[in-house]
């Protein structure tokens, strides 16, 4: 096993006269045995970063180290890595056994050892019965298991996963997610995992790297990202349903308050935010509050936000409420309870102690 280190790594695609920067200066240290998830919307550069680690894309600038060795110019086969692809990428004409053993055969490993290692990996994944089948005779979940097996038999220094669960149905995805988490514990291997699904990122990663438009937005443990997002992008990307963000003013006028830009609501701000108002009586901010920090108050509540109830989505253990306050759409997550009919005005309570404050222009966290 080994660590992976990216120092100022950059990827520029030279498309004739215009250069397209796919990945800007990434600095990232992935420790030995760590599972790091790269997450972001499509086109954010996460897959390009993974492919650079794999050696399938060249590094335009910067230094890439695996296990302390600079590998910028080392071909993929000599990097001692294994990769699991979104569409499985199994060799269609080979049996499961041949698929899993192919890399070892290429490295002239003896037949008995290949057999033993393939069998070990198959046992770990519970696919011993499938060894003589061909990929087309397998279900999606089985194929992905074989793809995992192909990586495991190699005993690589680093495992790379490129959206491995995206082609599976929801139920299987949850199951395979647990399987990968179990594998990580069992093999205590260094893993880099790319996904666009923040739930996968939150549940799998020791640490998460959130990316957008080729830049790293934040690196941190899952709950750290959830509780203290560095900017508005991370705030809305991590968490489902996403955090409510409302353009607003932070003001001292009538006590320290947050007033929505269209005046739809005004709520008292946490005292800690007072320091943000140095050199002025008010400041434009992005006011962020997670859906679970909104609640329905009784009609007589004082510091409430008047909002129209637009939609109720019962999720079983909780309700998702879509609400409209002034010009702003809000989302609330509340325990099941009797609700007034859709279309009526209700009063929302905000748990402002958990609110977030971002700069209105740069979207960077202020609080």
């Amino acid at each position: 096993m080994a660590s992976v280190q990216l120092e100022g790594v950059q990827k520029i695609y030279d498309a004739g006269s215009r250069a397209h920067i796919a990945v800007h200066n990434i600095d990232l240290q992935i420790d030995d045995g760590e599972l790091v998830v790269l997450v972001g919307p499509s086109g954010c550069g996460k897959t390009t970063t993974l492919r650079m680690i794999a050696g399938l894309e060249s590094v335009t600038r910067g230094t890439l180290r695996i296990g302390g060795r600079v590998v910028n110019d080392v071909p993929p086969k000599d990097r001692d890595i294994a990769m699991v692809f979104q569409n499985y990428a199994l060799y269609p004409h080979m049996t499961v056994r041949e698929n899993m053993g192919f890399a070892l055969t290429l490295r002239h490993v003896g037949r008995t050892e290949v057999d033993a290692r393939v069998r070990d990996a198959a046992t770990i994944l519970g696919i011993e019965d499938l060894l003589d089948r061909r990929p087309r005779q397998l279900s999606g979940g089985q194929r992905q298991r074989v793809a995992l097996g192909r990586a495991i038999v190699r005993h690589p220094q680093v495992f790379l996963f490129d959206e491995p669960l995206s082609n599976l149905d929801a139920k299987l995805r949850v199951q395979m997610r647990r399987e990968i988490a179990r594998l990580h514990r069992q093999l205590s291997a260094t893993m880099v995992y790319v996904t666009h699904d923040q739930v996968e990122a939150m549940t799998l990663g020791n640490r998460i790297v959130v990316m957008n438009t080729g830049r790293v937005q934040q690196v941190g443990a899952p709950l750290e990202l959830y509780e203290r997002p560095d900017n508005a992008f991370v705030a809305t990307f991590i968490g489902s349903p996403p955090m409510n963000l409302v353009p607003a003013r932070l003001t001292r006028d009538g006590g320290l308050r947050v007033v929505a830009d269209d005046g739809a609501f005004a709520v008292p701000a946490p005292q800690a935010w007072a320091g943000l108002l140095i050199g002025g009586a008010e400041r434009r901010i992005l006011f962020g509050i997670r859906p679970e920090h909104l609640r329905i108050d009784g009609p007589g509540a004082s510091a409430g936000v008047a909002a129209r109830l637009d939609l109720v989505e019962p999720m079983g253990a909780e309700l998702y409420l879509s609400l409209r306050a002034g010009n702003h759409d809000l989302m609330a997550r509340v325990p099941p309870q009797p609700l007034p009919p859709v279309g009526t005005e209700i009063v929302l309570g905000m748990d402002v102690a958990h609110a977030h404050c971002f700069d209105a222009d740069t979207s960077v966290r202020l609080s």
Partner: protein
Amino acid sequence: MTAATAPQPMRRRVRIGPLALHAALIVGALLALFPLLWMISASFMPTGMANQYPPHFVPRHPTFAHYREIFTRLSMGRFVLNSAIIALAITGLSLFINSAAGYAFAKLRFRGRDTLFRGLMLGLVVPVQVAMLPLFLLFKEMHLINTYWGVIIPSLASIFGIFLIRQYTLDIPDDLLDAARIDGASEFRIYRSVVLPVIVPILATLAIWTFLTTWNDFMWPLIVLSDQAKMTLPVALASLAGEHVQDTELMMAGSVVTVLPVLLVFLFLQRYYVQGIMSGSIKG
């Protein structure tokens, strides 16, 4: 009432449609097969019977005499061997060259790839006949006239073959090749162990097509091969036709020998051939 009467013409149309279609297909098939069947039948007729009037369609006393004659006196065996050597060599070598080139055009990144490919496509519009004279002069300089290589070399790479393989190979997911790269395969190994097995259907199609065209090829072997011992079947058959223009049955026996291998190859590989034709539409 309208509801009760309406389905009737519908039902009649449905029944007549396929019937008429099949009748038309059967007539078409018979028309297409008749010359072939008559060729086989006539090759077994005693000398002179094929030209009698009213015509006979089946030999009354079948004879192998013509087959004996073409293989003994006319040494047809030699021509079969020549054709086989040339057709097999071209098929084998060109499959390798066209598939490697098609794969490279589809999947490998190199400078000038698309420009080069467009250039090749332009070459498709140049008729083969235009190149024959310059090629002949060139081969004469290279002392390739009257050699097997003189026939084989011009057919080793075909633009059509490269194009066909390229289009098919484009459908192979890049991840599959990347997986092999990470597994440790060299570029040639990827071509041999991953790409070739996956494109077998199109290779079979190309193999049939190449074998058919080279086996049947008349013009270029006629130009290049002057020595009778090196002649291919179609050329030999044509020269027989000149000498034995009266001997229809003998000519038919020669034609059967010429056509038979092609038919066998086609029957043997037709499963792949159909698959190959369909491949574009299914894989999308």
